[in-house]
């Protein structure tokens, strides 16, 4: 009995499905043949969405990946900072489009001559989005949370950037910050254990943004990571994971007259081409991560504009100096002569990049602009190889990056181009590639011979490029060339503890000369990451560090 009812129900369900399609034979018969057309509604019914002229001013930004979390101190990835930059402020900030330090939550500061005490005078009348006051106590609380592993709101995995920039945590041998005192509500005093030249520079990094102590305490570390509360120009509203993050205007923002927009939506669209389609069709207002190849199409489109981010990165070909024959500087120099940088930039960066001479870009102070790069010359390369005792060349493994990075749009193709030139001087390069995480792991362990990699700067300090990539202390870490040069090491260490910028600059200029001469790596290019936006967007000032506050951005009337 039951069975029959159910089978009848099944049949009628099927029949219903058929009915829904319209059982008329001839009508359905047309359908499969013209299938895509019948799926689309009439054109007039749905004009492309445009922001309403009188409605709220909202900016929809398309990007490739979602944020990991929104508590800045817990994060290390660029996509997270793109959002937190707008919700939080740091004690000091960076100038538009440069890494020069400017006041932010701290209006001014004094540094003691011995470089051990920093006194910050805080902006008054600033409130967190939850209505609590921003003051010296709040600053003190944030630093205690970051530095003290036993603090209840310290993360079990640690705060990686704090650890790296300030020599570990409270009680560690190299920890930089001895104490933070609230002198009065508007004054906070930092005492250091040892001078740290880039101290102020570091404080401007996105991760050291000041969070509302009350909000962190009430929500706990994990929940705060999804519901951030800061003092920034925009207030966090909603996060739909892998889809959108919505921020709304902070009407009480301390920088009077800003922000200009009412709402910002960060929308995740993983595919580069689809993101550009969404921009062209008006679903989003701007996008980052433009394929270099699409730059021309954006320039040609009157409704769009191309926005170039100042470069703060380096893509390079490294030599593991512990492997033969790369331990011979002459061999390394020969290979440097055989790499045609301008041709690579032309072919693979679509012109959005400049040939690199030093491991750090010209946008960073201390860049040595006096070094003249080697010209591409296969003859010269061949001659050096002969001098080094390899007149017929040699065989070598060339590790190529498996993924696209801003500093290296297509690792394998670039490696193939270099391979062709090396062949002409008798060097047989076998291209090796593997999955990205493995690649990083193995190059860290020093298994590679010749390899490619790159770096994007964190804070605009030369130390963040030169020491990070080439100091002997970082072998086993980010110095994957395993280059251990005593002269360079001495200079780099001196520069770390020097107190004046002039002194440091002099030291870095020397280090770059040593690097150029000894060729542990061939700097290839400083790429210029490109963004595309509607032509009506103005005052978008992309920052070299990869994220920026959008308080000044607005739509042209």
């Amino acid at each position, binding site marked *: 009995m039951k069975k029959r009812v159910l089978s009848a129900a099944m049949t009628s369900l099927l029949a219903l499905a058929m009915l829904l399609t319209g059982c008329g034979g001839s009508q359905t*018969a047309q359908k*499969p043949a013209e299938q895509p057309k019948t799926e689309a509604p009439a054109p007039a019914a749905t004009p492309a969405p445009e922001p309403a002229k009188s409605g709220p001013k909202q900016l929809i930004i398309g990007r490739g990946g979602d944020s990991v979390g929104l508590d800045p101190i817990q994060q290390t990835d660029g996509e997270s900072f793109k959002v937190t930059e707008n919700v939080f402020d740091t004690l000091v900030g960076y100038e538009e489009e440069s890494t020069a330090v400017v006041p932010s939550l701290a209006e001014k500061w004094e540094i003691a001559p011995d470089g051990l005490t920093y006194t910050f005078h805080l902006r008054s009348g600033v409130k967190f989005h939850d209505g609590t006051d921003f003051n010296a106590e709040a600053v003190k609380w944030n630093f205690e949370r970051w530095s003290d592993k036993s603090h209840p709101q310290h993360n079990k995995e640690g705060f990686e950037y704090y650890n790296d920039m300030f020599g570990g945590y409270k009680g560690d041998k190299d920890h930089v910050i001895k104490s933070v005192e609230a002198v009065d509500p508007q004054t906070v005093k930092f005492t250091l254990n040892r001078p740290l030249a880039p101290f102020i520079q570091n404080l401007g990094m996105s991760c050291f943004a000041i969070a509302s102590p009350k909000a962190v305490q009430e929500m706990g570390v994990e929940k705060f990571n999804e519901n951030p509360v800061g003092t920034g120009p925009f207030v966090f509203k909603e996060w739909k994971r*892998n889809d959108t993050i919505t921020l709304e205007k902070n009407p009480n923002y301390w920088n009077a007259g800003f922000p200009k927009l009412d709402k910002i939506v960060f929308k995740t669209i993983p595919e580069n081409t689809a993101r550009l389609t969404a921009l062209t069709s008006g679903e989003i207002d701007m996008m980052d991560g433009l394929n270099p190849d699409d730059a021309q199409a954006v320039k040609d489109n009157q409704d769009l504009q191309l926005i170039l981010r100042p470069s703060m990165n380096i893509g390079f070909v490294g030599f593991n100096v512990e492997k033969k024959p790369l331990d011979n500087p002459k061999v390394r120099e020969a290979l440097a002569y055989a790499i045609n940088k301008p041709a690579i930039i032309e072919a693979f960066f679509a012109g959005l990049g400049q040939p690199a001479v030093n491991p750090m870009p010209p946008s960073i102070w201390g860049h040595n602009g006096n070094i003249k790069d080697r010209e591409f010359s296969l003859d010269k390369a061949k001659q050096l190889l002969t001098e080094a005792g390899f007149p017929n060349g040699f065989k070598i493994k060339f590790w190529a990056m498996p993924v696209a990075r801003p500093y290296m749009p297509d690792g394998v193709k670039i490696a193939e181009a270099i391979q062709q030139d090396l062949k002409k001087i008798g060097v047989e390069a076998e291209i090796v590639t593997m999955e990205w995480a493995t690649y990083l792991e193995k190059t860290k362990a020093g298994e590679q011979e010749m390899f490619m990699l790159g770096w994007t700067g964190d804070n605009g300090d030369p130390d963040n490029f030169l020491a990070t990539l080439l100091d002997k202390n970082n072998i086993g870490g980010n110095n994957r060339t395993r280059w251990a040069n005593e002269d360079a090491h001495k200079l780099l260490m001196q520069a770390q503890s020097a107190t004046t910028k002039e002194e440091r600059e002099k030291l870095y200029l020397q280090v770059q000369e040593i690097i150029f001469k000894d060729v542990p790596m061939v700097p290839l290019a400083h790429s210029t990451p490109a963004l595309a936006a509607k032509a009506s967007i103005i005052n978008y000032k992309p920052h070299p560090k990869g994220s920026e506050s959008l308080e000044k951005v607005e739509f042209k009337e």
Partner: protein
Amino acid sequence: MALLSYSIRRILMLIPVLLGMSIVVFSIIRAIPGDPALTILGEKASPKAIEDLREVLGLNNPWYVQYFDYLKQILSGDLGVSLHSGASITQEIGPYLAATTELTIVSMLFAVIIGVNAGILSAWKQNSWFDYSAMLIALIGVSMPIFWLGLMEQWFFAQELKWLPSVGRDNSRNPVEAITQFYILDTLLAGQWDQLWEVIKHLILPGVALGTIPMAIIARITRSSMLEVMRADYVRTARAKGMAQFWVVYKHALKNAMIPVLTVIGLQTGLLLGGAVLTETIFGWPGVGRYIFTAIGNRDYPVIQSGILVIATIFVLINLLVDLLYAFIDPRIKYR
């Protein structure tokens, strides 16, 4: 009675299947090269930080300890915590699963409605121009790369014609307030008709991209199954009685022809759930396919394990449902 005991036996069989699945998922993930701690912390991490994190994550324990810990956890309904975002997977996976389910349902509706009808008509008008062209389209449909089809759809319907939106689940300028996370349901509940229309429009392009392959397969199976049934005696009898061709096809033949089709529909639905990665990537769809895919890139072990396990469980359940439906539809099938 036989049916009931069959059903119970069939359901009990799920236990070893699911257990086996959890072991397979667990081992496959361990076979991926690369250290999750390094991947989480990124290329800028110090060796000490990596070692500390491995300890915190229990990655230094032997694999069987990790497996039993994991099993204990899921049995208590806890899918673990994402290494990447630090959020609970049980909570996090909900919206993704809803997004994918909604897309899958739309795709399957598209595939079943078009596929079954095209198949029926092809069989009915065997060797006609319609039959040939429908089967040609089905052949193209099966061999069409989803990636290419998706990008072409976007280029044509979103960029050139501007008829349909190219990405996402809703219009970001007028976002849907999520209640159940099923946006069609949510907009209906809220009575937001303009938003409902937006949600439907957003479903069309990815729905067609995802539904094209199953549509083609269903069309072919329906056709051959129908052809077989139409030659059966009882259909000939129905015809001889002077019944209209339409009723012969839709009332008599279809019911029996549907059995193999039902299998295919069940299988394809399961496949869609897991195979939505490409479609979800191209169309910026915040679904579970992309959730797992991103997790693989991040070596987010708990998410990969739990995500695949959830998908596989749904797949198994759909197949169970199909098997049980057979028993109801076709009394001739005997189960032991």
